[in-house]
Every structure is written in structure tokens, then in C-alpha cells.
């Protein structure tokens, strides 16, 4: 890496740094969401797409299955959190 070509962040104002910080935070959040979507696609592909692949599209039952798969995964997630919360209360 050529250090001469590196951008000098130290010359930025506080407001600029803050702006970049916010940008970074939202980019990280977006990345996090995308990673979860990758994980869920993996899980739901296994659950919903079985048998021979004969089309590049999702048929309606596969589409419904994928949506349900996500919804129930979220339910599971929330239910686990809720239960943990109860355990902690005891």
C-alpha cells in the first residue's frame, strides 16, 4: 500500500468524522441484515426447495414456504428471548 496515496483522515473536521461514523454504522447494520438474509436463505432453501429443480422461478407453494420459514424463524427467535427473560426473572 502506498502511504502517499492514503487519504488523510486526520484533516477532517469533527462534523465530517461524525458523518462518516454514522455512515459506517448504517453500512455495518445493513451488512448485518444481509448476513442474516444469507443465513435464512440457506435455512429456508433446505426446508422449502426439495426435489428436482425444473424451473428458475419459485412456484407458489415454495414462495409461501419461504415466507413462512422466515416468519416462524422470527417467532422462534422471539420466543427464545422471551423464555430467557423469564428464566432470568426467576
Amino acid at each position: 500500500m502506498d502511504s502517499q496515496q492514503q487519504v488523510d483522515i486526520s484533516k477532517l473536521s469533527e462534523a465530517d468524522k461524525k458523518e462518516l461514523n454514522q455512515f459506517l454504522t448504517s453500512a455495518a447494520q445493513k451488512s448485518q441484515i444481509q448476513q442474516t438474509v444469507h443465513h435464512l436463505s440457506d435455512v429456508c432453501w433446505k426446508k422449502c426447495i426439495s426435489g428436482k429443480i425444473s424451473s428458475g422461478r419459485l412456484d407458489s407453494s415454495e414462495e409461501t414456504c419461504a415466507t413462512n420459514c422466515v416468519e416462524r424463524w422470527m417467532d422462534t427467535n422471539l420466543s427464545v428471548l422471551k423464555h430467557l427473560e423469564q428464566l432470568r426473572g426467576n
Partner: protein
Amino acid sequence: MALFGSSTPNNNPQEVKNAIKLQLQQEAAMANARSLIGKINEHCYDACIPSPGSSVSPKEETCLSQCMEKYIATWNTVSKAYISRVAQESKRLGGQENTIAMNSLAVAPNDQN
């Protein structure tokens, strides 16, 4: 390749900021694409090449392209379902500030559909 590098050294804060943002977006898009390709590879190999022969047959080739389109369609469906659920949950909890940002994420990894 220099991280955050540009061909001409510059000190204009606006340009510095834009360069950093652009670099960041490109890195993120690349990482996202890499994850997607990795998963497609894994699942479509499983689905389309049950017993690897000496070459990929035309039938397997067709299966691979259909599988790829299907995986991307699944990704899009999952993404939409997840994002709308998260938005709904965060609304339920009273926070609303993320909803707009969430909606802007409801886009495909590519725009072909």
C-alpha cells in the same frame, strides 16, 4: 491497491469523505456478492451434480442456471419477508427510526427481476 486510495492525493474533505464512502460501499457489495455466490455454489452443486461425471452435462448445465435463478428468487423472497417482519417488530416496540432504512434495504442483490 491502497485502501481508501485514489489516483491523485487529495485533501478536500468532501472528496475524502466521498472516497471513503464509495470504497466502503464497494467492499460491502463485494462481500455480499461473495456470500451469495458461495451459497449458490454449495446448494446448486448439491442439487444439480449428484454424481460428478467427467464433465458437466447439458442437463446439469440447465439445472445449474435454473437453480441459480431460483436461489436468487429465494433470497429476494426471504429478504422481503425478513425486512418487513423486522420493521413490524421494531414498530411494535415503539422504535420507528429504522423503518425507512429497512425499507431501502428491500432490494435484490441484483436488479434483474
